């Protein structure tokens, strides 16, 4: 099926709006994606027709809501290649998924002297939860260095992942640099040392098939809102045996099997880790998002994004004073581009692009250890997704050229003279 970009864009109502009187050019997809009509409709439909609390079984509406929620779980499971119905936990977001794993597993299993191996390119979401449990348990953080293209250096990893490594937790795709890390090779290094291997798939899940059960990792996390779904839904996927071995994290309703004065028994998976009323409507709408992605098909989506990526790399390379961080070629990367402009403050650039309707992100991108590694205070990040066009890349480049002409020091001295 041909990739009908105009039809796809028409599925996203927000893309028709203007910002500051200019057509919206939305290039902040690494932060969150926009939502197709199908997802918005699913939310409205749920609240208009199906809303009830779930897993209570007292009435027909509750049964309908429960099956809508659990069907969505099944849709997501199949989409990411999870093994069966017991491995996929719904959380609030990737951050909560990682906190769940770090605290439930980490508190029960880590001890003084153990090493938690992360990388220099982790988002704070895959850094701070491990830092917290490391402090609590007396464990040590080890950061894997990056290769010149900004991917985790596998050779260095071979030396740094030792028998002391109890957890290897790394990002599949850097939210700043866009490089796709060698997940299977890295996972094998961790497994060879008997470590728990976790991969942060927040920036991977929107762009390619995860096939989680085949990757040699024990656990993964991602968020619905970066892959066309609503905000407020995250996923923790983990192998069933791992989840069975972990104590519950949050206590409350739904996660128990029985409660008496002196004894509580836990519900079975996956509900053991879903305390309280979950985000029912948003999970159901996430199911609609996954169906939308599935209908597009990974092959078509990836082929289109590859074209966008190649085009953007060529165009950005010609912007005066632009320095790209991350892979310079289109191979093993997604369409996330972080860069600096010589002599231009990143936040100034962001404001001037915004005034042209071009929405990018500027700053440290929740990855301060990486900013330290790169010796930059902040970067400009343009992140594209399946509905962006080469025309929008042209608009970005034109916008950047305007920014450079207005803000670079030469322009300042010309203005003074």
């Amino acid at each position, binding site marked *: 099926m041909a990739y009908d970009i105009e039809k796809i864009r028409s599925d996203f109502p927000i893309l028709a709006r203007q910002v*500051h009187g200019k057509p919206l050019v939305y290039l902040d997809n690494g932060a969150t994606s926009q939502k197709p009509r199908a997802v918005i409709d699913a939310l409205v439909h749920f609240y208009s027709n199906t809303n009830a609390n779930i897993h209570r079984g007292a009435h027909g509406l509750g049964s309908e809501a429960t099956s809508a929620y659990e069907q969505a779980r099944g849709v997501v499971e199949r989409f990411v290649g999870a093994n069966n119905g017991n491995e996929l936990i719904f959380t609030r977001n990737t951050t909560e998924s990682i906190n769940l794993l770090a605290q439930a597993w980490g508190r029960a299993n880590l001890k003084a002297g153990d090493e938690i191996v992360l990388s220099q390119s982790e988002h704070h979401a895959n850094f701070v939860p491990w830092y917290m449990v490391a402090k609590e348990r007396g464990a040590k953080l080890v950061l894997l260095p990056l290769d010149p293209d900004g991917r985790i250096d596998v050779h260095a990893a071979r030396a740094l992942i030792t028998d002391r490594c109890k957890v290897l937790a790394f990002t599949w795709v850097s939210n700043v640099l866009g490089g796709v890390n060698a997940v299977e090779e890295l996972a094998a290094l961790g497994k060879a040392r008997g470590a728990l291997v976790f991969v942060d798939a927040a920036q991977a899940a929107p762009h390619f098939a995860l096939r989680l059960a085949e990757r040699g990792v024990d656990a993964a996390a991602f968020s619905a809102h970066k892959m066309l779904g609503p905000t407020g839904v995250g996923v923790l996927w983990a192998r069933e045996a791992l989840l069975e071995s972990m104590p519950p994290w949050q206590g409350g309703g739904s996660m128990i099997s029985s409660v008496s004065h002196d004894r509580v028994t836990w519900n079975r998976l996956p509900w053991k880790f879903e305390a309280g009323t979950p985000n029912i409507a948003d999970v159901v709408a996430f199911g609609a998002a996954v169906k939308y992605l599935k209908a597009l098909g990974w092959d078509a989506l990836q082929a289109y994004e590859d074209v966008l990526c190649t085009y953007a790399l060529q165009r950005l390379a010609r912007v005066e004073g632009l320095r790209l961080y991350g892979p310079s070629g289109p191979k093993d990367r997604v369409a996330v581009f972080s860069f600096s402009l010589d002599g231009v*403050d990143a*936040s100034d650039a962001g404001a001037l692009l915004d*005034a*042209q309707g071009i929405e990018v992100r500027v700053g440290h991108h929740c990855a301060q250890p990486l900013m330290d590694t790169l010796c930059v205070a902040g970067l400009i990040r343009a992140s594209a997704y399946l509905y962006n066009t080469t025309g929008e890349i042209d608009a970005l480049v034109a916008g950047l050229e305007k920014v450079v002409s*207005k803000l670079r020091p030469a322009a*300042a001295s010309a203005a003074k003279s």
Partner: protein
Amino acid sequence: MAAPLPAKLQAMVDELSAIDDLEEKYDALIEMGRQVPDIPAERKTEACIVHGCQSLVHVYSTLVDGRLQLRGHADALIVNGMLALLVLGLNGLTPEEFLRVDPKFIEKTGVMQALTPSRVNGFYNVYQKLKADALAAVNA
């Protein structure tokens, strides 16, 4: 009713508020920032740094013949433009006159609506630092 703004500041606010297009508004703000003379390197001390700003901002004031001489510099040009409103728009006031200026004048310029909360806070942090100097002068 709030006290009228000093004439210089009022002119700057009027210039910005008359521009509807955000791009043009930023252009004007950046141009105002370029009118701010940089401060000598030896005055860029820790004590002059405005904390809570995303970019590096230095600001200080001296009292000359009972009037505040305001100096400041920001690495980012848009911040420098907002700084210009304060250090050019309020320069030469007595501390008492300075304290009568309501910093909410920035809202009338229309630049704040588009900026991130951290930058909006940055403006107020600069103002607070200058205000502390003015208060110290009044109480001296």
